[in-house]
């Protein structure tokens, strides 16, 4: 897949709770094909303390509108700067990067938490375009920390698990009744403990399962080897060989 570098215009910005916002970015050119689970490297303007681009998953794509949406959690200086951009501003993106999810299975489960929800919306949509309604299981400490909820309902059946019980079942995603049902493919993106717990479950039960990892990056294109993760076959680049890895290659990681 050819990678591009282009300026996008911020056409919309919406806060989702205190910690999250969604940027909708429009290209002047038609968008290339984008796979669910791929990401962009965004240049952070104006902030003198930010040197490198920041990797952000592609949350949704509208080919007609030529827009890409990003769901971003404010965690530091770069994401804070992005949260303050006015509509009309230009943002430079390198995209689409990484491998993306495989969209296998007839009965897939998508599990997400926090900013990890980001790539799952476009993934759910792609499944539904194939005629498959995935089960979507979203978790977080409280309802507030699940930034996107209803949007998933168009594409699949959605369940929630919150540690304080403020939305859906009380507890972790792995304790949710829907988690125990039978699936032939699991996709996870969320906090590392959540991903490892789900990965272990999938490995134990022989379910095909993909995780999307988030290491810090410099180049985003597989050139610098800064973003590696240890797989069962040695170091692999999260930006190029990932961000999506099949857990069958990540057994050591899942057990650690």
């Amino acid at each position, binding site marked *: 897949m050819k990678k591009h570098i282009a300026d996008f215009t911020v056409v919309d910005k919406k806060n989702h709770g205190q910690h999250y916002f969604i940027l909708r970015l429009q290209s002047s050119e038609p968008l290339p094909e984008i796979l669910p689970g791929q990401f962009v490297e965004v240049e952070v303007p104006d902030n003198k303390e930010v*040197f490198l681009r920041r990797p952000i998953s592609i949350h949704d794509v509208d080919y007609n509108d030529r827009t890409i949406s990003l769901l971003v959690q404010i965690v530091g200086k770069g994401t804070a700067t992005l949260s303050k951009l006015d509509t009309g501003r230009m943002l430079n993106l390198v995209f689409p990067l990484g491998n993306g999810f495989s969209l296998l299975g007839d009965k897939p489960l998508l599990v997400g938490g926090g900013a990890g929800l980001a790539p799952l919306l476009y993934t759910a949509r792609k499944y539904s375009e194939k005629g498959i309604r995935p089960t979507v299981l979203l978790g977080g400490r409280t309802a507030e920390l699940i930034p996107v909820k209803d949007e998933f309902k168009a594409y699949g059946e959605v369940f929630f698990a919150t540690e304080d019980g403020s939305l859906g079942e009380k507890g972790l995603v792995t304790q949710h009744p829907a988690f125990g049902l039978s699936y032939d493919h699991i996709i996870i993106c969320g906090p590392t403990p959540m991903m490892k717990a789900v990965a272990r479950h999938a490995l134990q039960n022989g379910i095909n399962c993909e995780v999307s990892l988030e290491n810090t990056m410099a180049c985003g294109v597989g*050139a*610098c080897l800064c973003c590696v993760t240890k797989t069962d076959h040695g170091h692999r680049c999260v930006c190029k060989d990932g961000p999506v890895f099949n857990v069958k290659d990540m057994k050591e990681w899942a057990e650690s």
Partner: protein
Amino acid sequence: MLDVKIHNLSLKNPVLTASGTFGYGEEFADFIDLNRLGGIIVKGTTGSHREGNPYPRMAETPSGMLNAVGLQNGGVDKFCSSTYHRIADLDTNVIVNVSGSSIEEYCETAAKINDLEKIPAIELNISCPNVKKGGMGFGTNPQMAAQVVGEVRKIYHKTLIVKLTPNVTSIVDIAKAVEDAGADSVSLINTMLGMAVDVECRKPVLSTITGGLSGPAVKPVAVRMVWQVAKAVKIPVIGLGGIASANDALEFLMAGATAVQIGTANFLDPTVTIKVIDGLQDYLNRHNIKDINEIIGII
């Protein structure tokens, strides 16, 4: 006219890519026409496969970054049997950065690359701060630097560029030593040894505690060293460290570099190399200079 010469190497322009920051070129083929480059210096290649250091390997710093990749690469045999065939036919100089932990390893690797018809030069990396054995050790001591260059010189018969570390009291002493030992050119600088602390976690950011600093932050040190070395040696100097624009490249050229390399800036803008090449030509046009060689070492 942007053509320059580094020993036997003819470059269509003085802009090369720095080892470890441009993969094998292929990673950037979607963004730019690789054939427009003066040269591509590929990732540091060692005698055998290396896994490199554990993650985290990177820290962002003011106008720069630290890396602790630790020479992860597939080894020279894999390069010769596979990567080489994918990139050998590019219409640019593909140069292999040769790294190692011992003189034997440097020599073995260099000998294998010597046999690759379409690799006109190697860059001997005696300056990597991110490996425990060898690496920077060779580059901080004139005698050791001369020894490794002398041995490699015996078995490597094309253009031999030696890459120097800035982490020394006198870069001139090292440069002269490797010149005397038979280097055809020196390139400088490799990264500066640095460190970053995650104060919330109260531990170093990098798995290796220290790492190599690169990016615009190091440019003033790099320009100074290029200027010092260019005055002290007769062989051509290749300058690098923090170049992100044509003006940055011009600083190095005027300070005495015959060519430059671009590293970290590729991460910020994968098309930066082409912008620098075009910017150099613009500068010549604007100032009515026919040949870029007229301004090389003008200071």
